[in-house]
């Protein structure tokens, strides 16, 4: 294939990847953040310590993280259809991507918040801060660099996962590589796709590292 033929394909596939990954990333960040905050607060010794709730949340996160994405993709087909009205295409792919990323984000957020020194939280409590104030004014802002890092890791993961979304007609770069590069032996398409993926992941990681270090005043 000539470059003139490859370019539009690549461009289209990159757009599709973004269409799948970005909405999924944003939704997963919001829901994963909430789940992660709850995990931290309900830990033994936490501000809302509650062992049963913590155990259940922990189990949900572990199960969610241990399911291979390709299995999740198939398992979620009925749910996806319920939400988007279809089980095929890049909009449909957003649903399993979001679901897969939520527990992932939750675990990273939990870790990030756990790293906020206990003394700082005690200080806020002794000032009379409510739990909501501690979360919004102390925990989240103090963990901001680690939260940015975790968002970056999630984004990179989702770009990887999105390649599998081709399996349900989601399109995107991974799909392009499989259909042209693998099934039609178009090696140059394969190489071009891999290069774009590589640049994309590098770019996201670089941007994330930059933003995290800018946000970190420690």
């Amino acid at each position: 294939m000539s470059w003139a033929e490859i370019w539009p394909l690549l461009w289209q596939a990159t757009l599709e990847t973004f269409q799948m990954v970005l909405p999924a990333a944003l939704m997963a960040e919001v829901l994963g953040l909430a789940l992660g905050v709850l995990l931290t607060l309900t830990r033994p010794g936490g501000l809302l310590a509650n062992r049963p709730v913590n155990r259940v949340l922990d189990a949900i996160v572990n199960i969610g993280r241990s399911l291979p994405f390709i299995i999740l993709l198939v398992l979620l087909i009925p749910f996806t259809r319920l939400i988007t009205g279809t089980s095929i295409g890049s909009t449909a792919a957003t649903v399993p991507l979001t679901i897969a990323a939520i527990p992932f984000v939750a675990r990273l957020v939990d870790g990030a918040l756990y790293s906020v020194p206990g003394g700082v939280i005690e200080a806020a409590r002794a000032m009379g801060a409510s739990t909501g104030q501690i979360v919004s004014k102390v925990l989240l802002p103090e963990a901001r660099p680690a939260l940015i890092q975790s968002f970056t890791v999630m984004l990179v993961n989702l770009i990887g996962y999105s390649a599998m979304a081709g399996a349900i007609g989601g399109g995107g770069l991974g799909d392009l590589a499989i259909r042209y590069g693998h099934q039609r032996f178009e090696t140059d398409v394969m190489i071009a796709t891999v290069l774009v993926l590589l640049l994309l992941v590098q770019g996201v990681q670089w941007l994330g590292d930059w933003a995290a270090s800018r946000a970190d005043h420690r």
Partner: protein
Amino acid sequence: MSDIALSPSTLPPSALPTSAVPALQFIDVRKTYPGQAQPALRDLTLIVPRGSRTGIIGRSGAGKSTLVRLISGLETPDAGQLLIAGQDAGQLSSKARRERQSHTGLVFQHFNLLAQRTALGNVTLPLELLGVPRERREARARELLAQVGLGDFAGRYPAQLSGGQKQRVGIARALATDPDLLLADEATSALDPETSAGILELLTQLQRERDLTLVIVTHQMEVVRAATTHVAVLDAGQLVESGETRALLGHPGHEVTRALLDAHRPEVQLAPGEVLRHVNLKDLSSQTLAALAGLGARIVLAEAHPQGVDTWLALPEAQAGLLAALNLQAVGA
């Protein structure tokens, strides 16, 4: 002219001197943490006079941290009463407790500053929690930072400050809500001696200017000596003795107090028959020095404090008994 003696009971309550209501009153306070066999505080009774600078000293495990957690509202007593400015801290609604907490300033050993906020942002935090508008809280914070000598450091992050500067930010933060009680929990333990002295001086000065009650919790007798008017010695969750600092350090009645006084015993080579004695001298005048020379005593270490000169003497054992007779303030054997 006749002297009119009014007993407190004949005065209407509003006319009572404010010092009549202690800043803090522990009455038979007991606290045991879940899963612990030994109570952290066992029937502790202790009064902190309003407007005093009170040192609370004890070895580790004496119950100091628990006392701090009770005063700062992070724990409540299992039994007994803790009255803060006459209010029973164990009976407060959560709203009243927060109100109380905003009137108690806390200074911590490890500063506990928010790393992602500037000095200014740290000092405004308590006001932010109370919903004070941004302009007012920033103006107040700038004023306080200037008072602790950090007027030019408002925009710095804690990582860009020295230990002493961080603690000054911590003190400014503790004062943000204009508290009546300032609680310094081992506030100088993480600092070098020179920086510690500066912080204690600042605390003392602020206490005087603002008519605060300052409670200094520490394991170091030097801190008590340098900065307090009153002292309470805790051991194993109980009060072992208390009183005015000068009097108590001059005549320690309990072995724990003596042990704490001896904690910074200097290392020195003693001649045969010589012993080391710790005394608090009024001064190092020629008269005092002559008296010491008469005993064959040599000064090993002398440190001046507002309360006198903290001195370690090496002298012949036979003469040691005569120290007290010299009207020196012997601090302990």
